[in-house]
């Protein structure tokens, strides 16, 4: 019964979405108040039924209803309840349901929180556009990927959730990631609603900013969590692989980063309006593209869902429709939108424009590299692989100027400025960064280009943020708007990230060692000693567990117990690494295999990863900065607040 209830809920959500995408929109067109007022209630109903469908599937998983194909394939009697819950979105079908739930949630949030700020016509258009997107995903789910399909009679027990996904990180990674992907649909909805109205107004760009910032922050968090998961779960100690699936999430992130910066210019100065609209379309469209790449099987990836070309055709058609229609609308309407105030070569507009050039080109580079094997294949030129050496080198080249320029941005004035005036308050930061970077690198023995440039670049960003903070603190008498606090946190976060990357990529210690019980390895002041390899049992797996004790000098600091697990169902083998996280370095031990020399020895990988936490710490600051900026009160007040806004950002626009 529950499956049927879920099924009906899905179809009801679809009907409400269809109503939402048509009736209130017609009302907006005819300026019919009554029809427009339907929108929020339709949105509420849509959310309720999406939630009901999702809750139904979750219940089926919790209750082991193996007559539902999706449950039978992705769960079994031994799976603990929390992984049964996360198995709800572990499969292709379930993850679509999560996607729909998130979309309906964002729609509800817009309806509730922007209802006082947005003019009724505009709000109606935004919700109707999002409703159209929901129609596409609901149809996709119901027609090609129904999570409620039954199999009668059901098997007595199910198969298994991919053991790689049986991990706490994987419970939270997809929801966060989808919050980001789907969140860009709000910015998209605003952009399309603006185009439909025929004019880009600074007001609605301001109202869309907090939504874009939130979506971007969630996407940042989701990607970070994915990277962290790959680090400890795959067992090889890497944190980013430039796999097509990772790239699929990274392209929208890069475009989203460009978008939050160009929105700032358009809101404050009315410049680049058409570009901002285009970026909003591009950020969401590449989210759809990512969905296509992950689920169609067109590219070979380690992380892809069970793929199906037929589903690929559906998403491709949907993407062609959504993006094609938006870009056509853009071509028709964009020339009519306003162009705003002028600016000079040295100005904040220029700084933000450069940000947009570098981030958009980076997104283009990642897209080109990801799809290039397809182009080569299409031309009949054979088969090539584009991998980390290409993406890594290109990305570092493109981001180096960005790192150098970031601190200059906030210090430059809108409209017109002088280079000397912009640079002079940063001279101290520059000197501190260069000298500090060299001193630190020398002190820790990191005599290589990557580590040194990482330290100098990172300190430059952190110092730049700090000096801006102290200047603004004086100028605003300790009442910094949250938008600025968020920006400084995020920029400093980039600095933390850069330091982490520079250190991990140059100073990682890695050894594959033969360990027999009783053996020990001394490295970097630590001594790893293996006592025994024991058999342990989990709820749905058995494992060989290495029992290590780690000493620093004579002092015992921790015990580490990496495992090699064999999951009962499907007989998959998983490496469960043992980690001792630290601010300055992680200790990392992974089990290889028993060596066949009869001594009970194992091959063991020992890593010491310096500053690896700084990579995720920096990314966390980025996400936090985005959320803080999104909570700036300026975004949540009505139009009449225009007057007091100048007082609020007084320190920022001295002119």
């Amino acid at each position, binding site marked *: 019964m529950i499956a*049927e209830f879920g099924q009906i809920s899905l179809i009801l959500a679809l009907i409400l979405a269809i109503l939402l995408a048509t009736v209130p929109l017609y009302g907006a067109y005819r300026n019919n108040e009554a029809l427009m007022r339907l929108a929020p209630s339709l949105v509420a109903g849509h959310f309720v039924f999406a939630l009901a469908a999702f809750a139904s599937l979750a219940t089926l998983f919790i209750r082991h209803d193996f007559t539902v194909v999706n449950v039978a394939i992705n769960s079994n009697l031994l799976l603990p309840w929390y992984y049964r819950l996360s198995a709800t979105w572990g499969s292709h079908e379930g993850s679509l349901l999560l996607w729909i739930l998130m979309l309906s949630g964002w729609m509800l949030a817009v309806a509730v929180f922007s209802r006082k700020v947005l003019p009724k016509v505009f709000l109606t258009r935004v919700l109707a556009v999002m409703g159209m997107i929901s129609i596409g995903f609901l149809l996709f789910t119901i027609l090609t990927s129904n999570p*409620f399909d039954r199999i009668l009679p059901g098997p007595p027990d199910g198969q298994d959730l991919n053991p790689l996904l049986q991990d706490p990180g994987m419970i939270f990674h997809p929801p966060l990631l989808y919050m980001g992907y789907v969140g860009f649909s709000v910015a998209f909805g605003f952009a399309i609603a603006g185009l439909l109205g025929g004019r880009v107004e600074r007001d609605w760009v301001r109202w869309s900013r907090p939504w874009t910032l939130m979506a971007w922050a969630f996407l940042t968090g989701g990607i970070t969590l994915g990277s962290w998961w790959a680090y400890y779960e795959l067992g*090889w100690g890497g944190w980013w692989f430039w796999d097509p699936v990772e790239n699929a999430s990274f392209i929208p992130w890069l475009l989203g980063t460009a978008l939050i910066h160009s929105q700032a210019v358009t809101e404050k100065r009315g410049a680049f309006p058409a570009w901002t609209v285009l970026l909003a379309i591009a950020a969401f469209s590449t989210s759809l593209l990512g969905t296509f790449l992950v689920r169609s099987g067109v590219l070979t990836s380690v992380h*892809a869902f069970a793929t199906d070309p037929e589903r690929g055709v559906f998403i491709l058609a949907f993407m062609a429709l959504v993006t094609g229609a938006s870009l056509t609308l853009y071509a028709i309407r964009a020339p009519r939108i306003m162009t705003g105030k002028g600016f000079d070569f040295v100005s904040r*507009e220029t700084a933000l424009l450069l940000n947009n050039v570098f981030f958009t080109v980076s997104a283009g580079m990642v897209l080109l590299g990801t799809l*290039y094997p397809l182009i080569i294949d299409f031309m009949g030129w054979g088969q090539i*692989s584009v*991998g980390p050496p290409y993406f890594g080198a290109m990305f570092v080249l493109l981001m180096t100027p960005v790192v150098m320029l970031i601190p200059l941005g906030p210090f430059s004035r809108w409209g017109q400025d002088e280079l000397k005036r912009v640079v002079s308050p940063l001279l101290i930061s520059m000197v501190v960064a260069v000298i500090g970077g060299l001193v630190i690198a020398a002190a820790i023995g990191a005599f290589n280009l990557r580590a040194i440039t990482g330290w100098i670049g990172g300190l430059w960003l952190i110092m730049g943020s700090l000096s801006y903070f102290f200047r603004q603190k004086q100028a605003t008498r300790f009442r910094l708007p949250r938008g600025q606090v968020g920006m400084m946190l995020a920029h400093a976060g980039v600095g933390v990230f850069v330091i982490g990357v520079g250190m991990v990529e140059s100073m990682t210690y890695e050894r*594959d060692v033969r360990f027999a019980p009783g053996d020990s390895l001394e490295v970097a002041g630590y001594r790893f000693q293996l006592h025994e390899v024991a058999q342990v049992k989990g709820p749905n797996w058995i494992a060989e567990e290495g029992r290590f004790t780690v000493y620093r000098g004579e002092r015992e600091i921790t015990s580490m117990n990496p495992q090699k697990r064999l999951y009962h169902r499907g007989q998959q083998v998983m490496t469960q690494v043992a980690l001792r996280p630290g601010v300055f370095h992680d200790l990392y031990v992974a089990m*290889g295999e028993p060596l066949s020399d009869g001594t009970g020895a194992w091959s063991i990988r020992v890593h010491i990863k310096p500053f690896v936490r700084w990579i995720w710490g920096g990314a966390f600051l980025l996400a936090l900065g985005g959320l803080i900026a999104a909570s700036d009160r300026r975004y949540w007040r009505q139009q009449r607040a225009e007057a007091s806004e100048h007082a609020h950002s007084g320190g920022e626009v001295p002119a």
Partner: protein
Amino acid sequence: MKLFPFAGPALGAAGLALSLLLSAPIGAQSEAPASEPPGQEQPGATRPIEQGRMGGMISPIEPLPFRSELERRRFKALTNELRCTVCQNESLSESTAPLARDLRMEVFGMLQDNRSDMEIRQFMVDRYGDFVLYRPPLAGHTVLLWGGPLLLLIGGLISAVVVIKKRRQAL
């Protein structure tokens, strides 16, 4: 409470839809998941827990007797940049496929024979094609790959200058 004044009509529509639906069959039964058609296979795939391996996978964690730190680094760099042909998308250094292990041993053996990195890469390309190189060689068909981002960047910077020049007049 003015938030959803039309919740009533919405629920009415939902009820109407519900009655429409109940007259139609829902949740049609789907076929049981079919087993995979036979394809190519890997050695070890059907002999679990044999020769110290479990599930036909061979961990890439291997203590190899390198002669120097430099050799260790070269091995790591080479196996990172060579793609495993049988895997989804993994380098030799992280693949658990038995063939990847054979190839790692081949790389190790060639390092012991004092062969250069270039020779080792060429050895792989001769047998498995350009596909194994994660760093595609710069050639006619990859000019756009390596030069594309540069072209995009130049184009972007030029349009930025054009935009700024135009906007200056509005000052």
